[in-house]
């Protein structure tokens, strides 16, 4: 079904096909930011290779007046800058769309489609004529297509100019070159084509109070604001930018201007086994400590995660999920660490998971992760993913409550210890399954042995069955307490719902929201429960019970969220219907819509 040209105003997708390492990222971000500043909701998805230079990379910008922030799946304007992928890029353009290519060289194969408009702009020739430096010529081709798109899509040139000035404020030479390149593309398009295209932007006022931020930066800010002082990590895509951002904010806000002393310590560990060990060592000593990682790193951390569960040490792990198994596809997205994170390590272990759906929640949950880890004295895993972590998302401006104070949990200080008759580490004095802990060096009475071996409620080594069971059973009491403290699900009920629901988590959110609207348009009304944490808590259980059938939408092959729901709730597995998307690109709404429609059709037939 094709939409009329009118419908494509502020509602279309630009896809930019580039070669990585050629500087296209700044041009693409300039493009997206321009649209955002024109007040039009927008999102950007970067599909990049696990490589530094020379391989294909794509950037998709969805211009979405209705504010749908999921991937759309269609391509209305393709900018084909990579000869290696021309054939695929040509095929990807939706009927009625436009393909722009560099016409410096003849590209006869591009004329193979008659249902789209093909526009040639001699980007390389223009830049070669204008610029003398070889690297500048390559970089400016990108800015030249921004100029051409400005004319074709009706972008506000004053906004572009402002952004270019902000970006190159400190590099006047680059500023001039960028301006010139944009002008080259703009003038060419104006002269040769009917500008603007029917697919174009018109200013709106739907982005005020919002920012464009990636989840990893937001997570890092959360760690800074929560007061984390120790960050240990081993570089791994797609989590690396969490520590990059943490470091840069700490350098900015936590360095003494006079002495240069740093109120933080970042340690690049030898591997992830050491990274989590450092976090535990620091947490044991009362510092807020965290480690960002991804699937392979989480696998390596298993032994220590079990230790922390059993010895009851706080730890914050940020797992920015990527495609598995094994090395998988490091620069593609998935939600496939759900089960391995929930039950990481041998023996009976269960871990608290926080499941943010957008950068705003990355910020909020990063702070919550430290509070929960210290309150519950256990590892908390913030399960983000590459889509949230590395793409720029439009979200509400982050805000901070100045009244916030960290919840350090049940830690006995010197004053309490001096008056205490004695201290026993693992007694459940309050009935919530959470014992009291002490920090090394504070008071002689607080000393105890942290151990991963069997221990009794007093903290002493044991091999006695009853003493062991008493401790692990108490850990279950703590688990039930955790279920009452973690973020509650976000539930959206439709008044006309006929008893069917969707359950999803994390970055599936926008695809589900868009699918709900599309389904509603065709008369199918569903309720929606977005799970935001594990353990699930009674609200999730109730939602399930209230629905005759539930679609569990997730981005992995093995229906891991459904498996977790099967294991951890009483809801019958037969009533859960999986919608799975796991190719590595962010989920769009179409698979959800078609799965529900199919089920609806079968239901009617039955």
């Amino acid at each position, binding site marked *: 079904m094709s939409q009329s040209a009118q419908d494509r105003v502020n509602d279309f997708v630009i896809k930019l096909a580039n070669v990585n390492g050629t500087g296209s990222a700044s041009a693409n971000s300039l493009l997206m930011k321009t649209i955002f500043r024109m007040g039009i909701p927008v999102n950007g998805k970067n599909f990049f290779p696990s490589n530094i230079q020379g391989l294909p990379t794509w950037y998709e910008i969805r211009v979405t007046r209705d504010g749908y922030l999921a991937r759309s799946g269609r391509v209305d304007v393709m900018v084909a800058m990579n000869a290696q992928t021309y054939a695929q890029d040509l095929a990807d353009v939706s009927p009625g769309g436009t393909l722009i290519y560099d016409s410096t060289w003849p590209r006869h194969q591009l004329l193979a489609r008659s249902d789209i408009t093909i526009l040639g702009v001699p980007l390389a020739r223009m830049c070669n004529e204008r610029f003398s430096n070889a690297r500048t010529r390559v970089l400016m081709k990108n800015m030249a297509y921004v100029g051409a798109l400005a004319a074709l899509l009706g972008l506000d040139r004053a906004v572009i100019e402002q952004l270019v000035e902000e970006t190159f404020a400190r590099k006047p030479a680059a500023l001039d070159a960028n301006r010139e390149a944009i002008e080259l593309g703009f003038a060419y398009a104006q002269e040769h084509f009917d500008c603007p295209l029917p697919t174009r932007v018109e200013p709106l006022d739907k982005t005020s109070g919002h920012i464009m931020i990636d989840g990893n930066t937001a997570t890092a800010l959360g760690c800074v604001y929560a007061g984390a002082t120790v960050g240990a990590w081993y570089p791994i895509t797609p989590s690396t930018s969490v520590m990059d951002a943490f470091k840069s904010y700490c350098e900015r806000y936590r360095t003494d201007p006079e002495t240069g002393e740093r109120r933080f310590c970042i340690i690049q560990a030898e591997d992830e086994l050491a990274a989590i*060990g*450092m976090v535990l*060592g620091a947490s044991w*000593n009362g510092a807020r400590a965290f480690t960002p990682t991804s699937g392979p790193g989480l696998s390596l951390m298993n032994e220590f995660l079990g230790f922390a569960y059993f010895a009851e040490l706080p730890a914050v792990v940020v797992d920015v999920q990527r495609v598995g198994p094994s090395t998988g596809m490091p620069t593609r997205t998935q939600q496939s660490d759900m089960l391995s994170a929930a039950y990481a390590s041998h023996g009976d272990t269960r871990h608290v998971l926080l499941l943010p759906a957008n950068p705003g929640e990355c910020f909020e949950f990063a702070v919550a992760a430290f509070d929960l880890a210290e309150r519950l004295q256990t590892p908390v895993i913030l399960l983000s993913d590459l889509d949230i972590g590395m793409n720029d998302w439009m979200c509400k401006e982050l*805000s901070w409550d100045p009244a916030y104070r960290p919840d350090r949990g049940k830690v006995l200080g010197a004053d309490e210890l001096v008056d205490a008759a004695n201290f026993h580490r693992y007694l459940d004095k309050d009935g919530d399954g959470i014992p009291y802990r002490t920090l*090394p060096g504070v008071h002689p009475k607080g000393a105890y*042995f942290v151990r991963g071996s069997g221990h009794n409620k007093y903290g002493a080594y044991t091999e006695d069955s009853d003493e062991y069971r008493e401790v692990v059973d108490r850990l279950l009491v703590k688990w039930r307490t955790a279920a009452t403290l973690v973020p509650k699900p976000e539930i959206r009920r439709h008044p006309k719902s006929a008893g069917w629901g969707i359950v999803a988590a994390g970055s599936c959110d926008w695809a589900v929201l868009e699918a709900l609207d599309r389904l509603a348009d065709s008369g199918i009304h569903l309720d929606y429960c977005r799970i935001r944490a594990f353990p699930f808590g009674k609200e999730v259980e109730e939602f399930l019970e209230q629905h005759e059938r539930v679609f569990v939408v997730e981005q992995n092959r093995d229906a891991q969220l459904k498996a977790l729901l099967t294991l951890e709730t009483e809801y019958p597995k037969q009533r859960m219907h999986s919608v799975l998307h796991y190719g590595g690109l962010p989920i769009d709404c179409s698979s959800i819509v078609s799965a529900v429609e199919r089920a609806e059709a079968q239901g009617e037939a039955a």
Partner: protein
Amino acid sequence: MTSIAKPKIVHRGLRRNALGLTIRDYEGGMSTLCAGCGHDSVTAAIVQAFFELDIPPHRVAKMSGIGCSSKTPAYFLGASHGFNAVHGRMPSIATGAGAANRDLYLLGISGDGDSLSIGLGQFAHAVRRNLDMLYVIENNGVYGLTKGQFSASADVGSKAKRGEENRQPPIDPVQMAMALGGTFVARSFSGDKDQLVPLIKAGIRHRGFALLDVLSPCVTFNDHEASTKSYAYTREFRHRVVNADFIPPREEIKAAYDEGEVMPIELHDGSRVLLRKISKDYNPHNRGAAIDYIRSHHRAGEIVTGLLYMDEGDPDMHGLNNTSRTPLNELPFEALCPGADALASLQRRFR
């Protein structure tokens, strides 16, 4: 790690240190290791050293991994905080602990299996970071808890109890630490308390990573005739090249030494280490020459002991990081959170 509580009987005449504590206050539970285990002698040396250093026990974090040696923290410093980590991963725990609280005394106890096989990577990186800690390897060439397999420190030609001969070359933690830039590298023998106690004291006061490799025979699995880690072999072939005396701050140097033979090294807290050469051809300040010396003597079947290399000038992990003088775990939240206004202004670049 098993241990048996030890009844605490304090004789009135027992000497007290500057804190008013007796040596009993530095002991731990009763050892459950085999009778005659070298590790128990190391435990006794640690107890004496910390008592004599007047260190409050609760200011010490004693950490270990897995193995016979890693059980020993239960047997000393009962009033210290202990951390019995997973196998081979104690260095990372120590690194995190030191990162959070730079004022804590970090004492790591490990073995040859824990440090040289499963934990070789973490051991090497702790040396490289110059983490401020004393790291003791109780080295006996075998896996005791799993009943006598060779460890990575077993010498070529050394035989297991049942006659099997080790053919793989050993990893020597001393040569490794020197090659990795270790700033305090020492070797001793569990049966030589006179040498051991000052080395422990100097190691704990040294700012940076202090490695103390202690040959500590396993009476049950590696104390037989064809072993190169037995009591008899170690006694016969150990070769003390450097003597190290530890002089606390403000204390006079009483013993008389010939000038030129003694090298005093001042530590950051004002205490001194007096290095006295026993072998004229050994130089504890020349890394390359020291490694060559140790290697060639090892080839000849000799075990070189003493404070083999020391450099007090290199910055430790916090020095390199320029970490705040106040331990990170004591900083108030206000010193860490940039606040609402900063958050509002930093977001300008996201618009």
